[in-house]
């Protein structure tokens, strides 16, 4: 069992947030608080590095959609990076990849932001 951890770093105008452990209804408020702070600061370009993520539940996925919508309303976006295959299969099957953009490398994700 890995404890849920969040680490944040800046890549120019883009905020890269590394997630580790399980993102469920118990741990999600910590990420929610961090994203709210970023948006209050006007930082709407966000990448979530999911490579160390073990699990994500619907509370987390639904909220990520909400944050992506908020970011897009401000010409930004929230994108997922390096999603483990086990999690990707689930979110693709459910249809979340229809609105959440997922990238395999940081370079491609960074390039996808219109105004990095």
């Amino acid at each position, binding site marked *: *069992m890995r404890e849920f951890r969040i680490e944040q770093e800046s890549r120019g105008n883009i905020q890269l947030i590394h997630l580790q452990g*399980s993102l*469920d*209804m*118990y*741990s999600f408020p910590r990420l929610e608080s961090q994203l709210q702070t970023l948006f209050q600061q006007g930082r709407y370009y966000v990448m979530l590095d999911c490579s160390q993520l073990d*699990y994500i*539940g*619907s*509370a987390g*996925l*639904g*909220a990520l*959609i*909400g944050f*992506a*919508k908020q970011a897009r309303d401000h010409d930004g976006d929230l994108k997922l990076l390096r999603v483990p295959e*086990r*999690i990707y*299969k*689930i979110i693709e099957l*459910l*249809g*979340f990849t*229809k*609105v959440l953009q997922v990238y395999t490398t940081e370079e491609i994700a960074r390039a996808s932001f219109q105004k990095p």
Partner: protein
Amino acid sequence: MGHESNIDIKKSTGRLFVRAPVHGKSLHHIRTVITDLARQVGFPEDEVAKIEMAVDEACSNIVEHAYNADRNWTWKHPDPEIRLAIHTEADRLIIQIADNGKRFDFSAYRPGNIVDRIRAMRSGGYGIAIMRQFMDEVEYKSDDQNGNTLRLVKCLKKS
């Protein structure tokens, strides 16, 4: 608070019984028990992930709604818990999840199509639809004596 240390796991007559406090900290431990068991039964990893998510959605609903929605309900249960009873029958994994929280008319609830909700960028309301999509049977019953019981069934042959 050490809620995780309060999780009780027992095996008896071919069934696994899990009792956990109604707290978000319990969710990870419940998922670990379920995924370990599903792998032992022989489900492929893609199906293990679906079972894990369905059970997590059920237990998250209990934590979020069953005991918190009504203060008058909470006082009757000063030490609320989630109770799981898991067993196999032929090629079926049967997971029963029980609580004594607020009753919810599960069978009548129709949250609509998941993809439509996603396209509309709705931030919630996915849990029950996910359970129905990922499990072969989802059945809810509630009575005053036994509380609320959600029965989730996954068939190995369909996997």
